[in-house]
């Protein structure tokens, strides 16, 4: 070793000579394992109780929600049936709804319709009354066709012909609305 070696270099040398790992004494591992085993056992016991309680709670909540939902649906159905008498037995037993894909498409169509309607209403005064009458008449026809196709689809949601007709009716309606909003003033 060089006597001119600096203290930092000496420290580095000693540090490098230290072992990279030092295993704990065997008796220490035994004590640790015993302690861990005891804690784990207690925890498992508590977990079982907690899981059981949570399961009971979920089951009870679910049952309660189901009862509430069924009662409110029955009530709504009863109101609907009462307000649309005479209703066919099928109307009571079948839950009317569109297939998810069409329901989603309809939401898009409705958003477009609302936006275009607003735009048309804003410039309605600048259009000729005869033009407004033509547009409104066409929209009523389109709405009637949409309602009819929708109602049929609710009864027969897997009918692909109906689905295509339903969306076409919406597209024609939106097209009339779009063109009406693009008309020049006084036309």
């Amino acid at each position, binding site marked *: 070793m060089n006597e001119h070696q600096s203290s930092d270099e000496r420290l580095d040398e000693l540090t490098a000579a230290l072992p990279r790992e030092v295993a704990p004494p065997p008796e220490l591992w035994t004590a640790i394992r015993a302690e861990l085993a005891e804690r784990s056992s207690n925890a498992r016991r508590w977990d079982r109780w907690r899981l059981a309680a949570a399961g009971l709670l979920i089951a009870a909540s679910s049952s309660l929600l189901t009862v509430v939902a069924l009662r409110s649906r029955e009530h709504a159905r009863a109101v609907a049936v009462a307000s649309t008498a005479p209703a066919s037995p099928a109307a009571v037993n079948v839950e009317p709804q569109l297939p998810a894909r069409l329901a989603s498409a309809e939401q898009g169509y409705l958003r477009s319709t609302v936006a275009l309607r607003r735009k048309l209403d804003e410039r309605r005064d600048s259009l*000729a009354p*005869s*033009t407004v009458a*033509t*547009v409104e*008449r*066409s929209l009523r*026809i*389109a709405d009637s*066709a949409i309602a*009819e*196709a929708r109602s*049929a689809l609710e009864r027969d949601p897997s*009918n692909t*012909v*109906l689905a*295509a*007709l339903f969306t*076409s*009716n919406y597209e*024609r309606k939106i*097209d*009339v609305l779009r*063109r*009406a909003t693009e*008309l*020049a003033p*006084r*036309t």
Partner: protein
Amino acid sequence: MRRRGEAGAGVRGCGGAGGPRDASRWWRLTLGAGLLVSVSAAAPLQAQRKVSAGYATTPDVSVRLFAAVGSVHVIGWDRDSVELTGSVAAGSKVALNAPQSGAAKGLKMFIEAPTEQAGREGALTMHVPRGARVWLKTGSADLTATDVTGGLDLNVVGGSITVHGSPRELRAESMDGAVTIDGAPEWMRVKTATGDIALRGGQDVGVSTISGTIDARGGEVDHLKLESTTGTIRFAPGLARGATVEMETHSAPIEIQLSRKASVDIDAATVTGEITNAWSGMRPSVGSEGRGMTLVSSGAPLGSRITVRSFKGKISLRPI
């Protein structure tokens, strides 16, 4: 015969057509500065009755005209120039392009009437190069386009649209005016709300209406789609080899007439309506719940196909 490159030919007061290409270039430069625009240059003018303007243009010039007048006739001619003549209601605002040096590639012209009633008066004739692309929008004018082979984009509200000839592209939209296409455009889209539509043939054709009737007869079709909500659809044109035809309605009758010899597959379905077939011996079948009908045939050697859909409109097939 078309004489392209003869700019200025046909512009009134500038001499007749004729002369070699060099002379035409000279005319363009000269006329560019001194083009006749008797009504207006760039700024709108008031209380004009007569309209007369001419421009040297390229053969495929794009022309945009908004005109609140009683009628507009667009005529394709064999000259590289645009000429607008006619009369409009007194008090109309007339804004035309300023004279340009050289052949114009694009023109915009605007005529606005002071009142709705005034917008139904007057008549304009616009000559354009046959290959021009014309965008024309009016209110209640009757539009007629003749011999334009370029593009037409025509839009009216209450007036009618009539096209003679076969433009490469045609878009015609009307609210309650009738649309008549007497030609076979390569690409065509026609839309009305309540206006009736008549056409004969075309390569790529789409027609849509809410309550107008659609009458397709004569000529030959390649790809065709006809759709209505409550308007009757009548189909009787010839079919190109491999043609595809779609017809769709909510509640109107669809009447199809085909040659007995037509080689075509049929796929017809109605949700609650009826199908009758007097064209072939095939009988339509009734839906599983006793409602609606279908008629499907396949195996036509030339591969043409007609698809028909209706909610409750009656579908009928019969021979021509």
